Structures are given as C-alpha cells and as structure tokens.
C-alpha cells in the first residue's frame, strides 16, 4: 500500500502563495487539509512559506489528528522566524495539553518543547508540570524528554520550577519507558551542568538495572550509557553489576551490545579475580564478532571500537583473527579497518595465515588498500621478530610482480625493517636496487636513498646510484633532498674517494646557496661545518648507531585509550579522539547575538566589518597582526567564507576574481607568503575561531602565469599540536584569480616539546611549484573555548585552590581601558568571560575567566584607571607556563 502524496509537490500555474492562502482559509475541511499538505511539501523542498504563518495556525484548532500534526510541524519550522505570531498558537497548545486523548496531550508538550521562542517557553511550564504527573505513561515519557529540551533553552527556569526533582521522581516510575527517558534527560542535563544533578547511587543503580529487563532496546542503551559512568565501590560490587549486564550481550540491537561491552569493560578494571576476567573476555568475544555481520556502516563502527578493545585487552579476540579476513566485496572502509585489526592480532602462531591474506590483498584492485596491505606486511615484520624473514620474502615476491606502487610501498617498509633489524637482511639490497628507476614517489625515493646511504659500504656502485639522483636535485621534493644530502655525506664518510668528494660539493652547493628551504639549508650548513672542522666528529655524528625502532604506529597512549574506551559506541570511539577534540558544546554560538550578548552586539562588532550573522563568537579579525603589519595588502579583500554558506550551488563560488569588486568582506588577512617570494603565489592567512572551532582562514592569489592546483598543507610540530583537521579545499587557481578557504584545525596532534611559544610553521605545496614554507603566529586567544564561563563561586574556589606560585602578573603600560563595557564586550567576543568587578580607590578591578582546550582555566584580574594608560593583569592558572602567551593575547585584545 503506497501513498500518492507526490501530487502535493506539483506546482500550480497561479501564484502559489496566494492560492495556498485561499485554500487554507477554505470552508471545507478537506481542502484545508490538502492545502496544509501542500504547504508542508513546499517547505520540504525549501520554499519559504513563512508568510502563510497566520493562515496555517488558523487550521490548528482541529480535531483531526493528522492535520494537527502537520500544523505543529509547520510551527516547529517557522515559529522562530515569526516569534510574535507564534504566540497565537499558545492557546491551542495549552488546551491540547489538557485534551482527554493522551496522544494529543503528549503531542502538544512534545511540540511546544521544540519551539524555541522565549515567549512560548514561559507558557510551557504549567502544561509540563501537569504532564510530568500525567496518569498516562506515554505522556510522562514525552514530558521527561521535554524537560531536557527546556533545560537547553532556559536552564534557570527548569531549576526554579523544580522540574529536576520531578524528573528524578520519574526514575522510580513504574513504567520502564518513562524511566529510560527520564534517565536520558537527566544524563544530558548533567552533561551541560557543572553542578551534580544526577548522581548514580548504588540504590539507583540497582533500580535501573532491574528496569533494564523491561525497557525498549533504546531505553536499554540510555540506561547502560548513563550507568557506565558509575564507579563501583569494590570488586564485589563490580562483579555483581557485570553479572546483571552480561545478558545484554545477546541483544539483537548493536547499540545495546556495544553499550553493554562499554559498561563491562569499565567494571572489569576493578575486578581482581583473573578467572572472572578471563570468563568475561570469553563472553564478550562472540557478540563482538557477530557485529561484523551487520550492515557495513555498523561494521565500521564496530571495527573502530574493536580496534580500541584489542589494544586494551588483546586476549578477547586473540583467537578470532579469521573473522577479520577481508571479503572481496567489503566496502573499502571496512577492509582498511579489518587490516588494522589483523596487524594488531598477528602473532607467531597465526602469522603464516595472515601473510597469505596480506599477499592476496596486495594483488587487489584498490590502490590504497593494496598499499596498506604491503605496509601491513612490513609492520608485522617489525612486530614479530621470528616472522620477519617470512615477511621479507613475501615483500620480495611482491616486488617481483613489478607493479609500480607495490614496489614503492615495499621499499618504504623495508627501510623500516632495516632500522628494526640492523645488519640482518642487507642481502636483499641488490634486488631493491633493480627497481630504482621506477621510483617516482617522494617517500619511496627517500627511503631508497636512505638505504643506499646507510649501506654505502656494501653497495659497490653506491656512488653511481646516488649520482643518478643528484642530477635532478633542485627539482626533488624536500623529503628527497634531505635524504640525498644525508646519504651523500654518509657515502663520503664511508668512501672518502674522489667521486664522492665531488658529489658532496655539488650537493652542499645545491643545498645551501641554491635553495630557499630553511631545513635543508640548515642541515647542509651543519654537515659542511662538521666536515670542514672535524671529519672524525662528523663520523661520530652522522654514522652514529641508531636506536632500534618498534611498531608503535597506531598505538594509543594508555590514558587516551582509557578515555576512548569509556566512550565506546560514540563518535569519540570512532574518531579515536577525546570528545573535547571535536565537540564544541556551546549553545551560545547557535543563538543570535541579540539573545546572548544583549548589550554587547554593536560595539563589539562595530570595528569589525567581518561580521558573520550567525557566529556569536567572531574572532577579532581586525586586531592588528604585529608580525606582518607592513605586508598587509589592502588591495584584495578576502571574503571570509562561512562554512554554512558553502551551499551556494554555484560550484565556482569559492573563486573570487580579483578584478571584481569583492563582496562585503572582512579585513584582509595578513600576508604570510608575498607573491615576490612565492613565484607569483601569494598566501594570506590567519588562525581564527568560529562556531567553537579553530580554523585557518586562508586566501590564495595566483599572480603567476600558470594555473595552480593540488594544494596541500602541513603544519610543523607546535606548542598546541595544531594540525589540519581536514583536507585543504582549494580549487584549481587560474592565473589572476584567488580563492579563500577555511581549514578546520584540530589540536594536540603533534605537540612540540620545549617551552610554550606561538610559532606556527606552515608548509604549502601544489602540483606546479616547490614547497613553500612560512611562519605564522598562533593567537592564543583563538584557543579560548566557549565554555570558559565560570560561576562566581567556582571562580573563588578555584582561585583559592591554586597555590600562590601559580599567580603571575604583568603590566601593560601602553594599554588603556576607556570604557569597561566596551572592553568586556570585546573580551567576551574572544571567550573571556566577565565574572565580577569592584572599585579599588580610583581603580576598576575586573575579574574574568577563560579556558583553553583540555579544560585548563585562566582566572584573570585586570586592574586599571579608566581612561588612563596602564593596565595591570594578574592571572592564576594550573599552567603558569602559558602565562607569557596569555599576556600577549590580552595585550592584543586590549589594543584593538
């Protein structure tokens, strides 16, 4: 039985809106209903039908449930754009919430909670209060979720009206679905509040575990997820809990199984008896394997989680490696994850079988998969000493097939094998050298050159081989250049004859005078000086024994692993990142500034034309960039693309011709690579924060004569481990055009050790030009998170709890605060939140808070005389080493 609703999508000839209006006001019920359906159809395809608001709302008072639902749906979509008219619906809502039909009561409460208009929220309270105590469980379970909705809109209101207590009462409800929804709502509220609201005692725990048996499958997930945060008092309690959760492993719903696994793993930490632990491991294996017969997408989620689980408890799946063998028709993402797990489970016992599989995969069609399979063989060789020889012979067999990318990948892993087992397998070098001419990828080339240099004394014609590479030295990518340099030096030190001597001169010359790559140049100069002052020292340095490597790739840090395991089944476990690395749980950014910064708005943005309508926390884009004040280009203002605007169907929209008057644009980005040193390519860039995330806002201008494409970006290690969170999305740049992009950034990827600094080293490459390197500056305030607001009491407590040694202060003699309001607004825009102020003699003392990722708070005290230069800034923080960076940021913010 199929519907025929598609007719509602067909447009009529007359002007659509007036016609709909007429039909909505028809005296015939059926006609009105059809008209509402047409309105919804129009809404679905993205037409704006908000002008029909009054007419649609007029249809609301109907006894026809289907029609009522449609009108409600319309309201959810448009109430926000018509807040004043939305009030018209309130009466019906309130009336419906007292309807004798429980379906209608629930519908009214459910819908009202979805309408995020303040005026309606007020009217929601009374009906909600009633519905929380309704006789019908269906109404109560809907009301429970509605409390979470209301908390999201107005947390204070929820607390004032005592809804939290009502919600807690529902945990003891006799209906399991009401209990489950109440738990879900409480868990969510707890997550966004710093106060303890929903604490699981052993009593609630026991009650909820009993409810588990009768809940819907989804309810079981809610409860298990909430309970997984519970810390058992001792091993006995933990065993008890586990015993009651284990039956869930047999559930057909994968989410129930994963949540049960999560909970069991958590409790296992406490269990001391090895027998119990072994038994649990045995019980968890089959359900985990069964997840692999689900839909591929679910398999993917399961595999990402299994990857974590086998790192923590390798025994669970030690005997199940066969189930991870790839099927020919598995989607590529499933195959890749299976491969990763196979490497983790490979052992001396199963390696022969595993190698046969890898070899099979290495002859498949998908290039990425083939490469990963080859690499997997190498990683097994490094991991399993006794199997290394067998792995190498498989690699050699693959090299003999002479498929180009297989050969290159094999050489890359063989280099690692040489590092792991020095002086063991060098006999195969001759075979490798046969494929020398076919290498065209930088990493493979670099690896081969490293091998030649490292074993120069055993390769008779090492000098000839290296020389063949030298001809193209200037054109090689930096990775290869660096290896060539080092390999030539090694060769020279090992065979100080005439040939190598000439070579080294050519190389040193190329790598110093004729390059503008600082890494290469510095390394070349070091070698040069070493060689010219003390060749013996050079030998000690260059030919020093290397530490043996181990296969720790893709191994997670234990503390991170534990955090991820406590997040099984969630996004965090799929990304293998802690939640705060990708979640910016800031509701404020979603609201408009009017709601959030009632008096701020105008001033804080008045000096920043780069105002983006829906970004509550726009970065102070106009603040001066002290590093490049001179190179700022007034010419081509870059339109800051808003991520949300990407939907402009014109695919070329990202390219803005420089000749065109650019659309209302923000201030130009500071130039980081002037066209003069970039062979006509000019790059302007700056780190910004938007919607709770750090972006690298970049603009590329092609002033050269050739089209440029294939842009890629890489960041060097830096204090905050900032790295690209995605691919650089730059279209082909025709000569004379420019393109802007926002590159999402992630934190804590490659953290450089040493004292904190703001240096950000960036490398950009494209298919036509050499790699460009430039330095940029990390604006510390870009890192301030949206959740840095602190309660006054928390502030005081935190201040007291930190030792005095954590207090640092600095004077900014040049800064001046002219108006407290303006300053606070400006700081708030950068996520420095005002807490309190007081007057001390003629000075104003302001207290603010800020937070950087990983939850490191900064408590700030600013002291100044209004209108007079000189601001004193004192801070207290658990990380005083960050203080200099922090002061720099504050100074910048005060100056702007």
């Amino acid at each position, binding site marked *: *039985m*199929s*519907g*025929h*609703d*598609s007719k509602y*999508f067909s447009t009529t000839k007359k002007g659509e809106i007036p016609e709909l209006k007429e039909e909505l006001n028809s005296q015939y*019920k059926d006609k009105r209903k059809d008209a509402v359906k047409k309105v*919804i159809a129009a809404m*679905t395809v993205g037409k704006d039908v908000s002008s029909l608001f009054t007419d649609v709302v007029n249809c609301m008072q109907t006894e026809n449930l*289907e029609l009522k639902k449609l009108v409600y749906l319309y309201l959810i979509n448009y109430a926000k754009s018509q807040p004043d008219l939305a009030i018209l619906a309130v009466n019906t809502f309130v009336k419906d919430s007292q309807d004798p*039909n*429980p*379906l209608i009561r*629930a519908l009214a409460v*459910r819908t009202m909670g*979805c309408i995020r208009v303040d005026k309606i929220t007020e009217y929601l309270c009374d009906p909600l209060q009633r519905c929380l105590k309704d006789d019908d469980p*269906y109404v109560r*379970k809907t009301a429970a979720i509605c409390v979470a909705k209301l908390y999201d809109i107005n947390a204070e209101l929820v607390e004032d009206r005592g809804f939290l207590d009502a919600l807690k009462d529902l945990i003891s409800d006799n*209906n399991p*679905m009401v209990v489950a*929804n109440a738990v*879900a709502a409480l868990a969510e509220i707890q*997550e966004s509040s710093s106060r303890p609201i929903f604490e699981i005692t052993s009593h609630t725990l026991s009650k909820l575990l009993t409810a588990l*048996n009768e809940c819907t*499958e*989804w309810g079981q*997930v*809610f409860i298990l997820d909430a309970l997984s945060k519970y810390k058992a008092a001792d091993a006995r309690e933990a065993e008890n809990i586990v015993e*009651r959760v284990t*039956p869930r492993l*047999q*559930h*057909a719903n*994968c989410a129930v199984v994963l*949540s049960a696994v999560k909970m069991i793993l958590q409790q296992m930490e406490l269990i001391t008896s090895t027998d119990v632990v072994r038994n649990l491991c045995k019980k968890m294996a089959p*359900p985990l394997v*069964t997840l692999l017969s689900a839909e591929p997408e*679910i398999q*993917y*989620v399961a595999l990402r989680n299994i990857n974590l689980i086998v790192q923590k408890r390798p025994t669970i799946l030690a005997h199940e490696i066969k*189930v991870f*063998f790839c*099927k020919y028709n598995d989607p*590529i*993402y499933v195959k890749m994850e299976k491969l990763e797990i196979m490497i983790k489970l490979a052992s001396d016992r199963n390696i022969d079988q595993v190698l046969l599989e890898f070899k*099979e995969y290495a002859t498949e069609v998908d290039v990425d998969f083939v490469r990963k399979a080859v690499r997997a063989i190498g990683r097994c060789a490094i991991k399993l000493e006794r199997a290394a020889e067998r792995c190498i012979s498989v690699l050699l067999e693959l090299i003999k097939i002479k498929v*180009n990318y297989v050969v290159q990948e094999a050489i890359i892993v063989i280099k690692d094998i040489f590092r792991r087992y020095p002086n063991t397998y060098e006999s195969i070098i001759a075979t490798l050298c046969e494929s020398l001419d076919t290498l065209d990828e930088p990493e493979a080339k670099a690896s081969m050159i490293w091998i030649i240099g490292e074993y120069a004394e055993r390769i008779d014609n090492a000098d000839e081989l290296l020389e063949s590479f030298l001809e193209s030295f200037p054109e090689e990518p930096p990775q290869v250049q660096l290896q060539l340099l080092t390999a030539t030096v090694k060769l020279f030190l090992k065979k100080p004859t005439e040939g190598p001597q000439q070579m080294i001169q050519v190389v040193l010359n190329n790598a110093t005078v004729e390059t503008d790559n600082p890494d290469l140049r510095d390394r070349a100069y070091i070698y040069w000086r070493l060689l010219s002052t003390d060749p013996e020292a050079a030998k000690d340095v260059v030919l020093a024994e290397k530490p043996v490597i181990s296969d720790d790739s893709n191994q997670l840090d234990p503390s991170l692993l534990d955090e991820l395991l406590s997040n099984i089944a*969630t996004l965090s476990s799929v*990304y293998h990142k802690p939640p705060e690395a*990708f979640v910016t*749980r800031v*509701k404020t950014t*979603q609201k408009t500034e009017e709601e959030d910064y009632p008096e701020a708005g105008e001033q804080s943005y008045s000096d920043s034309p780069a105002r983006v309508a*829906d970004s509550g926390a726009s970065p102070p884009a106009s603040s001066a960039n002290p590093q490049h004040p001179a190179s700022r280009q007034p010419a081509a203002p870059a339109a800051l693309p808003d*991520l*949300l605007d990407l939907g402009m169907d014109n695919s070329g929209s990202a390219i803005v011709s420089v000749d065109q008057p650019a659309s209302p644009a923000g201030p130009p980005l500071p130039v980081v690579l002037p066209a003069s040193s970039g062979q006509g390519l000019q790059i302007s860039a700056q780190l910004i924060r938007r919607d709770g995330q750090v972006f690298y806002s970049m603009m590329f201008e092609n002033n050269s004569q050739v089209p440029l494409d294939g842009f890629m970006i890489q960041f060097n290690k830096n204090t905050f481990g900032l790295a690209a*969170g*995605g691919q650089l*999305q730059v279209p082909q740049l025709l000569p004379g055009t420019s393109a802007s992009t926002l590159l999402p950034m992630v934190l804590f990827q490659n953290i450089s050790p040493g004292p904190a600094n703001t240096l950000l080293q960036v490398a950009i490459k494209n298919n036509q030009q050499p790699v460009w390197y430039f330095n940029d500056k990390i604006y510390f305030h870009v890192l301030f998170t949206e959740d840095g607001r602190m309660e006054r009491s928390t502030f005081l407590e935190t201040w007291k709890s930190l030792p005095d040694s954590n207090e640092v202060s600095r004077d900014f003699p040049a800064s001046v605060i002219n108006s407290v309001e303006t300053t606070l607004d400006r700081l708030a825009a950068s996520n420095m939140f005002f807490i309190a102020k007081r007057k001390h003699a003629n000075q104003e003392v302001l207290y603010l808070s800020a937070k950087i990722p990983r939850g490191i708070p900064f408590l700030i005290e600013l002291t100044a005389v209004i209108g007079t230069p000189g601001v004193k800034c004192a801070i207290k923080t658990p990380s005083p080493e960050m203080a200099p960076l922090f002061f720099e940021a504050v100074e910048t913010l005060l100056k702007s």
Partner: protein
Amino acid sequence: MPVAASAVYFLNLRGDVLINRLYRDDVGGNMVDAFRMHIMQTKELGTCPVRQIGGCSFFYMRISNVYIVIVVSTNANVACAFKFVVEAVALFKSYFGGSFDEDAIRNNFVLIYELLDEIMDFGYPQNLSPEILKLYITQEGVRSPFSSKQPLDKPVPNATLQVTGAVGWRREGLVYKKNEVFLDIVESVNLLMSSKGSVLRCDVTGKVLMKCFLSGMPDLKLGLNDKIGLEKESQLKSRPTKSGKTIELDDVTFHQCVNLTRFNSEKTVSFVPPDGEFELMKYRITEGVNLPFRVLPTIKELGRTRMEVNVKVKSVFGAKMFALGVVIKVPVPKQTAKASFQVTSGRAKYNPSIDSLVWKIKKFPGQTESTMSAEVELISTIAEKKSWTRPPIQMEFQVPMFTASGLRVRFLKVWEKSGYNTVEWVRYITKAGSYEIRC
C-alpha cells in the same frame, strides 16, 4: 551521551532534500549543504560513513536511491544512530508495502513526517515497533483522500499504554480462529576458500524467522539441538540427553521480546511474540559446518589471447535433497571477446557487464557433480604491465530442508491461559552468503 541525531535528512542521489527533520537546535538547517559540498560531490563518498565537517559530524547510509544522513554536533552514540536508521527504514518499508526509495518517500511524505515525529524525540529513539505504531499512526489520508465521513481519530484504546508497556511489541485482544506458528530457519553459508582448496574462513549466520497467528498473550518456549541448551536441560532433569547430533552456537542474539536474563540463567528461549512476522533470533556457527557445495576450478591462461576455464561443482548434501537457483560466476579479464562452453547441466554464458562467465543450474540434486569447461578468447591488447588480478569465483544457491549447521528445532511450546491448541510449521533453508573461491 545516547543522543543519536540532531537532524535527519533524506537525500536523493543528486543531493536534493526529499525530507528532513531537525530534532535539536545545535546544528544549522543548512548543514546538509556542507554534506553535499564536502562528501557527495567529492571522491570522499563511500570512503568512510562517519565524517566530520566543521563542527558537525555526519553519518550516512545509502539505501536504494536514497541517502539517509544524520547530523550531530555532540559526541553522539553512532551505533545507536546507525541502528536507528536501519530500524526506521524497516518501519517505513512495512508501512509502504515493501519498497523504500525516492518515489516511496515523495508519495508518503506526510506519513514519514508523522513517523519521524513519533520514533525520535529530541534525538532519542523511541518505540520503532511497526506493530504498535500501526495502532495509532494510520494512513488515513492515503487510503481515502475524499471521504470526509471518517470517524475523527478514535485511537485504539490503550494505544499509549502499549507503546510504553513492558510488552511494547504486542497488542492485547488478538483473536485467531486457527492458531498457527510458522518457523523458518534460514542459514547463510559464508565461505572463503583458497585457490588450493583449503578453507580460509567458513561460518554460518542463521536467522530464525517466525510468523505468529496466535490469540491472546501466549508464552512461547523454543528448544533447539544446541549443546548448551541440551546440557542445561539434562542437568535440570538429571537424566542424560537423548543421543543425536548437538551443535555448538558461537553466538546468539535475540529479538527484544526474548527474556535475556532468563536465557542467561536457564538457557531457555522464552518469549511473548509480536503478532505477525518477525526475526526471533540470529546465530553464528563456525565449527562443524557442512558445506553444501565443493567447487574445484582450474584456470589456464594460454598465451595472451586464450584462457581455459574448468569448473567442477560437487553437491555434498543428502541425495534426496536438491539445490535451487545455483549460479556460479567465474570472473574473466575485461578484454574478453567471447567464450564457448560445454556444460554437463544448466546453461552458461559470458556476461560482459560484470566481466564474468555465468553458469546457472536451476535444480541441482544432492550427491552429484557437474562441470563446465569454457574456452575464453581475449582481445590482444598492448601488454599491460600489471597482470590480471583474479577476483574470486562467487556462488549462489538455495538448499531447502538443509541446514549447513545441522541446527534442528526440537520443540516449540505455546502456553496461553485459554489453553488453545496450536499448529506449528517448521521449514529449513540454506542459502549462499558470500561463498567465494579464490582462483
């Protein structure tokens, strides 16, 4: 956090929004544009079903010609989200009468909106059981758009109690003249065999499908010939089990209706079934699998333009049984020009669209063998350096009344307070899952 979704989008293959529902306020309404831009229009599509763009994450699945995209901005429960999509699609299918595609969505958009409102609230999945939802979400509008004389929504009494009830999958007051239960044991054999004939991986995934036409609120108990269940039983009754084959299940998962705690403690499968058709349990077996077919391929490449393919297939199940719909697909290189065949039974031809020789046998009796030999001519091309990578041979079949695992139903007991008699029907069938033989 068990939140599964902030928004759900249904897109067609071009990326047009067919229907969408925003459940939470934390993702912008136009996030779907980012999805189109960064995933649909790039090569990334199909490389990973979970992706982050900006501050939002996208989970997506393709079902026929529709993409279902879930958007979240928090650390949502991905497993829950994907399972929700799977279940929602099953629900829609049961409402639309089997098909789920772009047209079905357009034709039922009002109904879908209504269902989306009901099955998820604020991103939390609610009851998705078709049986119960059909009690109060009807297709009234669809059935008769012009008869306005319909009774104004008279919900089935207790509908709301049943949605939330402990037996949230069965409604009360069902009456059947004849009380019948149909059990189908459906097994899929998955095999991966090396070119040398050794079994690399082999398992059976089975389902017990049930069709119930039973009155009232019956309690059912199912007994299988699996080892754990039998042992438990013999312990309880303290007598040795009857001789006969017992099998070991690696893993079992059950429908929501099965009391898991009871299964765990007593090893009995007891449940109050939903009305109509449902999947009672799934199981997986890796030990002692009876492979219904042996395939012995020999493929010879004779120079650059000719290949000889010989495939022998042996059926190793009981002589009284037979397999239906046997299909054997032998991959050949792209540059195949033509092929000539000799077969002892069935028909074979070359299918260029899938680059395979396809050999079909309608009925294949047990304990017999059949062979196909083919000569394949190839167009000589400029020698490709890369040798032809041989994909595995794939096989499809169905063997009625045969279970590769040896699983048998020992009993199915029905108790109802009115004490009626029931008729039980049991069928077995084994199908090919991914039955691959490398060559």
